[in-house]
């Protein structure tokens, strides 16, 4: 099973996590100002990227905390995990690597 590096718990098996779809989709600042097209965009339209994709995950069977990940939708490889308040990381191969359990232990 694929391992996913939770930013808080380190590498855990994939079925401990739930998927939350595209990251960085903010609730509309002024919902009353939106027309039908803008509401449709917010409710129904998401990027469907082939390649590196910023998305939300939650460690449901672990620390139960949400985090963001940059994951390649073709290879399923996690290129980075990062805080939900952080900005979208660069989508190049220079993106920071996901922390591994060894790194976690070393930093404790």
């Amino acid at each position, binding site marked *: *099973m*694929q391992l996913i590096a939770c930013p808080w718990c380190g590498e855990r098996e*994939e*079925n401990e996590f*739930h*998927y939350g*779809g595209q990251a960085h989709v903010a609730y509309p600042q002024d919902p009353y100002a939106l027309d*039908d*097209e803008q509401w*449709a965009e917010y*409710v*129904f*339209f*998401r990027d*469907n*990227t*082939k390649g590196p*994709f910023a*998305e939300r995950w939650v460690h449901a069977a672990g620390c139960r905390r949400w985090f963001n990940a940059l*994951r390649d*939708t*073709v*290879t*399923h490889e996690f290129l980075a995990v990062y805080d939900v308040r952080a900005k979208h990381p660069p989508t190049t191969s220079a993106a920071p690597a996901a922390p591994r359990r060894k790194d976690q232990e070393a930093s404790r």
Partner: protein
Amino acid sequence: MTLPRDNAPARPSPATTLNRAPHPDAGPGDALPDHPDFLWRNPEPKRSYDVVIVGGGGHGLATAYYLAKNHGITNVAVLEKGWLAGGNMARNTTIIRSNYLWDESSGIYEHSLKLWETLEEDLDYPILFSQRGVLNLAHSLQDIRDSKRRVHANQLNGIDAEWLEPDEVAKVCPIVNVSPDVRYPVLGATYQPRAGIAKHDYVAWGFARRADVYGIDLIQDCEVTGLDIQGGRIRGVRTTRGPIAAGKVALAGAGHSSVLASMAGLRLPLQSHPLQALVSELLEPVHPTVVMSNAVHVYVSQAHKGELVMGAGIDSYNGYGQRGAFHILERQMAAALELFPVFARAHMLRTWAGIVDVTPDASPIVGLTPVEDLYLNCGWGTGGFKATPGVGWCYAHTIATGQPHPYNAPFTLDRFTTGALVDEHGAAAVAH
């Protein structure tokens, strides 16, 4: 009821190919039979066509066939980036049914089922269409209410549907465990006797062969890399085998629809997910029908050759890699074993995944786009195979006339803005 036909497609007689005496100087392979007759030409792409269909799967091939047959449009190319019908057409679990809840869905899926019933004669090709019926199991009181509501809706739409109690379920499919002593007991099922399965490869080949006879060019190994749009109108496509001009372009790219549409600057409400399926080793005929369970999340039939064919829901995350996670299959097998204890000793032979493009309301998008003469067929999610002839018929009408056919008119792209959704999540009798 149509009985299953087990006649395979025509092949050269073994007598003419196998009995050649090997030459004394014969090299390795010389004694092997000749390649069977090719079912279609493999032409070089021309510089222009009246209609270019992007995607050589079931939907693209059926659309090409009905463009020629129903509308007399034969200056058509079907462009396929890989090999013909090697995407989801080669990966689905071949279930055909029309027992959807809403009128809009009933319309197009029942139209399709009626075409399936005469398709073998129409294509003059064996497709092993077997109307062995489908059971959609109910495991809870809410399942029972939803199922009966769907049966009533189906009957009002003229679709064969009935509600079966557990003992009647056991009569239709004796190997289903209807004992009350399981975690999710079978409390009944809806039954559509006209539903069934077909041999997916033969369906694709049948459409391809007839399209080829009409003079339609089926071009494999030809990936579309761009769409030429001038003044809000499509002019042609750019491909790995050079540019091709086109009067009209029709997209039928399934899991890659978002990628294709983005070449026209179109944003679609789709998410592409892996959907996995598997087959067992070959077994004696034990499973006479198709069984689907929404609650325990598995659907099972037995192919003519004898392998059990099973599928489940999509993998949760977006993916374009045509592979999914093993724990999804593990959960699916647990569900299958609860329903069919007799499968406990069967071995899994092979698993695979396809990429399905899922819409927010689990209904397809078929029709016009903001770009003139560019047409869209996508969003069939986990259930596109059963629609193959029906959508081919309607999409061809849309392309030929520039107006949607009444059966695909409700399935517009702008329904996500207007709110006229066709919500088949759950109501479609299958887990999405």
